[in-house]
């Protein structure tokens, strides 16, 4: 029902990172965008900022909910998807493509546990408020 391409790894909280190379593309899964509903705002770090695996790096808001974003990898932000500032709905329309959030130069320490694509029965994105 929901796509979860196998060329990337996923957190339980449904953020993904691509795994082919030193630069990872970070976003949220198809399941996550569907659970959130219409995305209306993203708050992201800036280029040059460090993010740490499993720690918060931003916020995605839909009409109905505010959700923290957790980093699927550690590293340095090399690009931010600025298109989302005017078209946050791209996260809904194309979560694995045009709706990406960050590009990250992955830190050397790759102790990260790889995980298989989440099932649609997995936990919801963490919602607050």
């Amino acid at each position, binding site marked *: 029902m929901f796509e979860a391409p196998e060329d990337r790894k996923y957190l339980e909280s449904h953020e993904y990172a691509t795994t082919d190379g030193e630069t990872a593309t970070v976003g949220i899964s198809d399941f996550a965008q569907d659970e959130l*509903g219409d995305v209306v*705002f993203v*708050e992201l770090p800036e280029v040059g900022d460090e993010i740490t695996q499993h720690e918060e790096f931003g*916020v995605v808001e*839909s*009409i109905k909910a*505010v959700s923290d974003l957790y980093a699927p990898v550690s590293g340095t932000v090399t690009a931010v998807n600025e298109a989302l500032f005017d078209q946050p709905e791209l996260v809904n329309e194309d979560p694995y493509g045009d709706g990406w959030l960050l590009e990250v130069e992955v830190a050397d320490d790759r102790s990260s546990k790889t995980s298989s694509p989440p099932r649609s029965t997995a936990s919801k994105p963490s919602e607050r408020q």
Partner: protein
Amino acid sequence: MALRKPPLHDVYAADASFTGFGGWEMPVEFDSIRAEHAAVRESVGIFDVSHMGEIAVSGPDATALMQRLTSNDVTRLSPGESQYSAITDESGIIIDDTIVYRLPETRDAEFLFVPNAGHDEEINQRWVDHCEEWGLDADVENQTEDWAMVAVQGPDAAATVDSVTDADVTSLSKGNLVESDVATVESLVARTGYTGEDGFEILCPTADAEAVWTAFAGDCTPCGLGSRDTLRTEMGFLLSGQDFDPEDEPRTPYEAGIGWTVALDTEFVGRDALAAAESEGVEETFVGLVLRERGVARHGYDIVADGESIGHVTSGTMSPTLGEAIALGYVPTSYAEPGTEVAVDVRGREKRAEIAATPFIEDH
């Protein structure tokens, strides 16, 4: 405590996502809040609003009881008319807001009023207790479980509802109600709603809810509480328990911007306190806000001006119609003029905002 399920729950369960609201498990979204919102603004949508309470009041003193427990003047109502009103405590604080229907004379009960989700038992008890205390001869019955309620809302609502009713609902005045069959189900059809669009609220027996819902299935976009909230927020309509609440947001009708529901020339619980409040004037008032920077103002966020918190947001969302973040909240009257520049503290970041007149959308 288990959530109460509306009678239509199983009819649309496969098509909706759900949320707990006021003790009920209600559909929050069917397709997308944005699409549902647009359907109501542009054509027609249908909501299950069976979580709303229904309390019937009958007997020789029905009018006296209603008059003494609601802020508005129920004696202005003729059979088949309705009235928006506040239910206030002794100090004039709003406990709940409600629509009071004076039923057509063919009905057993004289009044049916609609408290908000989760308030039906408390409000019913309030009526029963006061009726006894005052020695009035009236019967009060909580009929919340007996009625299903659907709202058909949007510019095409009149034609849509008229196509399945035996009564002519296109000529029904705003706020009025008639008895009518809806798809052969004996119902009450009121030209009321909570979206700012033309529309109808249909009360039918719980057992017949599916027949009524199904009669509209082909013509109306099913809508959940998510779009109900964005639609009412664009209109600046109050949400009970959020924009006012006797515990968490104690407000008088004057502060909440519904002073027009207060008939000081009637005797009701809270009347004396409100008469004093009316002559003193309010310190804080309910306003609209529009964010001028990216972000969304949410319930509980501080409204900031001149370096300090001056108030707080009680409701906020992204307006699907305007594509702007809009909010409702309370500020001191000195900041209440539309155009006044303030800020909203969005998770530690101040976002520029402006006080705005409500409704936020034009021609409503």
